């Protein structure tokens, strides 16, 4: 078994291949944007394909960020409270609007429902340019929880 790398918080550092694998195992993530100087976070249903995050959105700040080609964050995690086991993967990448795709192609790209309402007809792509991840598990835990 290879050595487990841990960060300054005692969490296992996931390698890039594992991060990308984990991105493909979930359908719900959170998009993080900077609106002015202030961060904003929104849950979205997504699909990980062609080394990118894809989701549908309607008019609003997520679409504006994509139209502007902003750098955004995208986070996916899975937490098992009972087992005290969790992982989190963070993607930092450029957000763009995917244009020129038919509705069928949209459907093929994002085989999941947009989280909210109608008029979510814009397909947004976040390139998974920078990917990092952490895992916490009982086995990897170096310190017991403080009482």
């Amino acid at each position: 078994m290879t050595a487990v790398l841990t960060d300054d918080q005692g969490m296992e550092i996931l390698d890039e291949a594992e991060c990308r694998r984990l991105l493909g195992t979930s359908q719900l993530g959170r998009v993080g944007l900077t609106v002015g100087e202030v961060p904003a976070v929104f849950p979205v249903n997504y699909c990980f394909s062609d080394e990118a995050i894809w989701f549908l959105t309607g008019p609003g700040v997520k679409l504006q960020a994509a139209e502007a080609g902003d750098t955004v964050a995208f986070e996916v995690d899975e937490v098992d409270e009972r087992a005290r086991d969790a992982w989190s993967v963070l993607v930092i990448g450029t957000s763009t609007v995917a244009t020129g795709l038919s509705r069928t192609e949209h459907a093929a790209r994002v085989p999941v429902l947009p989280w909210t309402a109608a008029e979510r007809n814009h397909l947004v792509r976040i390139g998974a340019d920078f990917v990092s991840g952490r895992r916490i598990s009982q086995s990897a835990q170096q310190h017991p929880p403080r009482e």
Partner: protein
Amino acid sequence: MDLVELNMSTEAIDFKDCRQLLAGERIGRLGVVVDGRPEIFPVNYGMDGDGIVFRTNQGRKMLGLSGEVVFEVDRIDPEGRSGWSVVVHGRAEDITHFDGPRLRERAETPWSGPKDILVRISPLVVTGRRVHAGPLPPS
């Protein structure tokens, strides 16, 4: 696969219910701006009145805590057809030296071991929305 169309409806959640939903969960996502770029981290949290308290170590999370942060908590069914999301915009402060054991107890014990910095987010704006999916109206 087909893109299934549903009749989705969104409703705003009032402040009282937002607060109740926040109090009922223990894991949220902290959004911060680091060097002008957004980052998101899951954290174990607790409530202190209307504030969110959590523990951290010095790290990337703290770098973004000089200004406004966003804290998001949600519960969404795996099919993504219904759920809620509550978003707290607020100011994060390092309160490690300003509070005692009372708040430390409320800040959930992080699973990854001791974390010595206690942070409180004082809410400026709290918003929530709930989504339901119903059947499509007959065409």
